[in-house]
């Protein structure tokens, strides 16, 4: 039995997680050991009953009662201690394995490129990190110790029976082949039906999601009944499948129970003759005959469990195996360090010259070339603007400058050197970045600001705040800079978050400043503040501005106009207007909208 299980385990993907267990393998060994001693006491306990029957009752002699009690108590104590240790260890192993895997996964995610995050939803990645790991953790602890308990008990019981009375044991064990056949008949069906129930359950959750998230739309369409009938169909299906599953499970459990009664009947029928002389042995046989079936019945649960866990193992180890599209070469890591051990002493100062040299680019998950032999110089201190409609692909150039992606062909030069010659961390630490949807981290405002420059003085902090006109935002906060911003900064309004994230970027005093639709999702007041601050904070820096609103980019040195992922026009504001092309069209339309909004306000 045990052998077969090991074979199965390998098959269930266990092999793939063994390398990650190095820190707990000693504990696992201990857990198994104490699991064994625990199950040994379970096998021994009925033997006390046998002794009591044969010696005390059979011979009427209580001469050994004291020593009997002592041994009995000791066995109980050993059982308790073994169970304590193996259970405590199981939890410890479970939690440490979870921790280890989660950390590994988390660390790995910090190095993966954006294409991974674009292709996989946050929910999906989050589930890999949190639920897959915990399933694996419980596999190497509880499932394992359970196996040890149950199967060593089974083997122990068989051994003791053989020792006590080989003939009777042989008769009891003769039902085992029958059980194997029964097991083979049920196992596959049970596993299938278990899976089906799980799938329907997931579907019902999905339906709830739809019914609740889409409630407003459902109402306005007046299709409540239609949605409801679909839902009812699903719950009906769930009910049917669950009952079907319980029939199958009940049948299986029933036959197993019947088998254990057959064993009991065999003991009584064939073993009854010994009852007069060896009543103790007889009673022990009865206990074992009934206890033997338990591990076998449990086998179905464990296998169906292993099959689901196998999926978790596969998905999680796949996550760890994903390679980043953007990786620092060994030489670069050698010189500049990696994210955990940066060698800041070797970092050069960034000057702020950017050059695209014959760059051709295609997103790893896309099938269209978005840049073809594109060359452009953005010398230090100049301002580049990229405009176009939402979803037109304006972020591509910024992604390349930040080396979130690398060109398919050609090079991006930072200060005249290929961006790949220095580490990502070096580049990111020197670039200021303000995103469309501002994101703050749990903690105080001050902690968030200091992200940009951990060594900034109080003065510098206030200068940065002042530079982006965020003074009154801070003044409004209850505890000023020490106000907690909440998870993802959600205790603040989007506008407040944006001004703080703007200040955060400025505080780092970056040579290259990137504003990625910084005003697109904020209120008009914040927008006005950011607009007003722009000229001041971009002076003395190379700036890249992605903008939806064209009035903000009029002063840029170069404007790139993007449509359907491609750059269609390029030039200064007045040149582009003269062209009377796409930029002109966008501009007039926006002017119209702005004028309208102004009148209506």
């Amino acid at each position, binding site marked *: 039995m045990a052998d077969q299980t090991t074979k199965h385990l390998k098959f269930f993907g266990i092999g793939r997680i063994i390398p990650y267990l190095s820190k707990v393998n000693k504990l696992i060994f201990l857990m198994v050991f104490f699991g064994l001693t625990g199950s040994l006491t379970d096998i021994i306990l009925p033997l006390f009953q046998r002794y009591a029957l044969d010696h005390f009752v059979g011979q*009427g002699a209580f001469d050994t009662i004291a020593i009997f009690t002592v041994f009995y108590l000791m066995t109980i104590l050993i059982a308790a201690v073994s169970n304590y240790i193996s259970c405590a260890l199981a939890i410890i192993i479970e939690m440490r394995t979870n921790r280890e895997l989660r950390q590994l996964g988390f660390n790995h995610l910090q190095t993966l490129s954006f294409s991974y995050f674009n292709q996989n939803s946050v929910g999906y990645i989050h589930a890999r990190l949190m639920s897959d790991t915990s399933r694996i953790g419980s596999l190497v602890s509880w499932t394992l110790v359970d196996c040890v308990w149950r199967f060593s008990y089974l083997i122990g019981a068989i051994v003791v029976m053989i020792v006590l009375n080989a003939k009777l044991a042989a008769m009891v064990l003769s039902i085992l082949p029958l059980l194997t056949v029964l097991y083979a008949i049920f196992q596959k069906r049970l596993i299938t039906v278990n899976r089906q129930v799980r799938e329907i359950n997931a579907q019902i959750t999905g339906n709830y999601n739809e019914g609740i*998230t889409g409630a*407003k739309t459902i109402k306005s369409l007046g299709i409540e009944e239609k949605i409801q009938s679909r839902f009812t169909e699903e719950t009906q299906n769930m009910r049917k499948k669950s009952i079907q599953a319980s029939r199958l499970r009940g049948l299986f*459990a029933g036959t197993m129970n019947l088998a254990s009664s057959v064993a009991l*009947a065999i003991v009584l029928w064939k073993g*009854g003759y010994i009852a007069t002389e060896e009543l103790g042995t007889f009673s022990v046989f009865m206990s074992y005959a009934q206890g033997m079936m338990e591990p076998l019945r449990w086998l179905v649960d464990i296998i169906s469990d292993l099959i689901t866990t196998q999926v978790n193992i596969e998905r999680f180890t796949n996550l760890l195996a994903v390679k980043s599209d953007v990786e620092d070469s060994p030489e670069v890591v050698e010189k500049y360090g990696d994210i955990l051990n940066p060698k800041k002493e070797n970092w050069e100062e960034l000057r702020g010259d950017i050059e695209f040299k014959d760059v051709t680019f295609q997103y790893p998950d896309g099938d269209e070339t978005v840049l073809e032999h594109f060359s452009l110089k953005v010398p230090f201190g100049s301002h580049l603007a990229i405009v176009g409609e939402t979803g037109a692909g304006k972020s591509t150039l910024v992604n390349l400058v930040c080396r979130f992606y690398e060109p398919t062909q050609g090079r991006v030069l930072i200060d005249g050197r290929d961006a790949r010659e220095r580490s990502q961390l070096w580049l990111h630490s020197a670039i200021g970045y303000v995103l469309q949807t501002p994101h703050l981290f749990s903690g105080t405002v001050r902690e968030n600001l200091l992200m940009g420059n951990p060594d900034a003085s109080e003065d510098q902090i206030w200068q940065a705040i002042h530079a982006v006109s965020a003074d009154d935002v801070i003044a409004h906060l209850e505890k000023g800079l020490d106000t907690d911003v909440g998870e993802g900064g959600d205790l603040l309004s989007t506008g407040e978050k944006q001004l703080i994230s703007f200040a955060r970027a400025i505080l780092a005093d970056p040579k290259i400043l990137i504003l990625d639709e910084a005003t697109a999702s904020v209120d008009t007041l914040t927008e006005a503040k950011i607009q007003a601050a722009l000229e001041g904070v971009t002076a003395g820096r190379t700036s890249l501005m992605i903008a939806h609103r064209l009035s903000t980019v009029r002063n840029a040195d170069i404007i790139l106009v993007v449509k359907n992922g491609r750059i269609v026009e390029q030039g200064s504001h007045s040149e582009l207007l003269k062209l009377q092309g796409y930029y002109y069209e966008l501009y007039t339309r926006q002017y119209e909208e702005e004028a309208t909004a102004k009148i209506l306000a």
Partner: protein
Amino acid sequence: MKNKQTISLLWRFLKGAKRYFLITILAAGITALADMLQPQIIRAAIDCALGGKEADFPAFVMNAVDRIGGFAYLGQHLWIMALAVLIVALVQVVSQYTFRVFNTKASETLVKTMRDQLFSHIQHLPFSWHMKNRTGDIIQRCTSDIDTTKNFLSEQLTSVFRIALLLILSVAFMCSMHPLLTLIAMLPTPVIILYSFRFHKKIHDGFEKCDESEGKLSAMAQENLTGVRVVRAFGRERAEIEKFEKQNNDYTTLWEKMGKTLSRFWSISDILSGVQVMLVVIFGAVYCVRGSLLEGEYISFISYNAMMVWPIRQLGRMISELSKAGVSIDRVAYIMNSPVEQDAPDAIDAPMDGDICFDHVSFAYENSPEILHDIHFTMKAGTTLGILGGTGSGKSTLMLLLDKLYPLEEGCGRITIGGTDIRKIRTGHLRQNIGMVLQEPYLFSRTIAENIGITSPEPDMEAIRAAAQAAALDESINSFTAGYDTMVGERGVTLSGGQKQRAAIARMLVNDTPIMIFDDSLSAVDTETDAKIRQAIEKRFGKASVILISHRITTLSAADKIIVLDRGRIVEEGTHDTLKSAGGIYQKIYEAQSGIQEVCP
């Protein structure tokens, strides 16, 4: 469970499941009784059939034995006893099977009723309720709280019943054989139950702490994944890893501590119940020798005692868990007790192709100042009405009121369609006949064709295609490999904002409703598409009453009547030709939108 209302709610959920529960409980009773019989057969075999002693079995048993040939005959033919074991086992298996299947039937019927009623209730809760309550929270109540409630009603309650029955019967049978030994066996039980109960009450806080810590860890991962761009842009990977590591360690340590407490509890329970068994073994032996207990009785006594041990250990936990279920039931009751939308008893399916009239309508949202003041206008059937207004002017509220998504209080004016007050029109009928595209339309996770055709009972592919063409969505759909059968949403392609809006427009057009509302629906699409869609819609003008809410004069100018809303009041009313020179807001906007050429440098 706070009040009567909740209990009556549970009673309502139990509808249709009660008889299954009854059978379940009956089957549990039969199983328990059969469980009790098995040791009696063994006892009879050992004491009477083999031991040749007298035992006080009930008269009907003795009669039956005598008819077969007396105990001595049975001792010669032990197979008859073995057969009795098997027959009882068969009864056990059948009743267990019945218990399992009917328990599942009961719980699945129950959970289906709960899910259906809850879902239906949610569908019929008013729009304002959905605006007020957070989606995530409602989903939580519908999934995990439902599961807890189900477990409470189907597993815990039946388990408590089973355990109590088993306990009572075991004690009764034990008492019938040896009251004094029974007393000794019962001695430690109050201690075990009390210890377990108190422990589980206490450990509750520990579990909560662990949950909270896990929540934090999970949120941290979520925050990191959503903020991946910021993390990278600021080179924050290392700090993030350290932060995660700390929380990861905290959580693990918390659980390790918890694991030790739990294991301690388990092993102390092991000792307590081990000692209890030991007492029975030793004192049983003593009574055996003294002659007050027969050997067979001794063995069956030990069997009964074994049946009792686990239930006793479970009982404390059961009781402590019952209190947790109350919380979940209350959370479900919160939804079920929220009042649903209701039609007046005399509501009718009035014809919807009449004039629409807002008759001195004023409106305020709950706990907010009045947003619409004395709105009064009439729109002739089959004409087109344009509405121009800034953010917060109340134009969208107007449409929500027309669709009865917010009810108009008595005394705040009337809205009539064809002369009938909409309060008197059946809500479902009204909404099915008013086509409206919400600003944030929701698409269902079905195919595109199903989404467009969702309002019609028998979706007609021709009509769906035509609607998609009119909404300028046809081209996008054809670019998908699966075309109209492409799945939308989580399980399929993600549509862009503009595509979603066009799909929602198509969904509305396919229905050919007598009233159509476009609430800024074309804002997310570009001018070209806007024009295309408008042309397609204009073809349908004349048949339907169309309301266009827009900022674009080009969109509004074709309307038969235009009203201008400002801060909840109608400030201008007329046609494009009269308004464009009336000297009001409309004229200003008209000029701003057509005088572009001169404004541009």
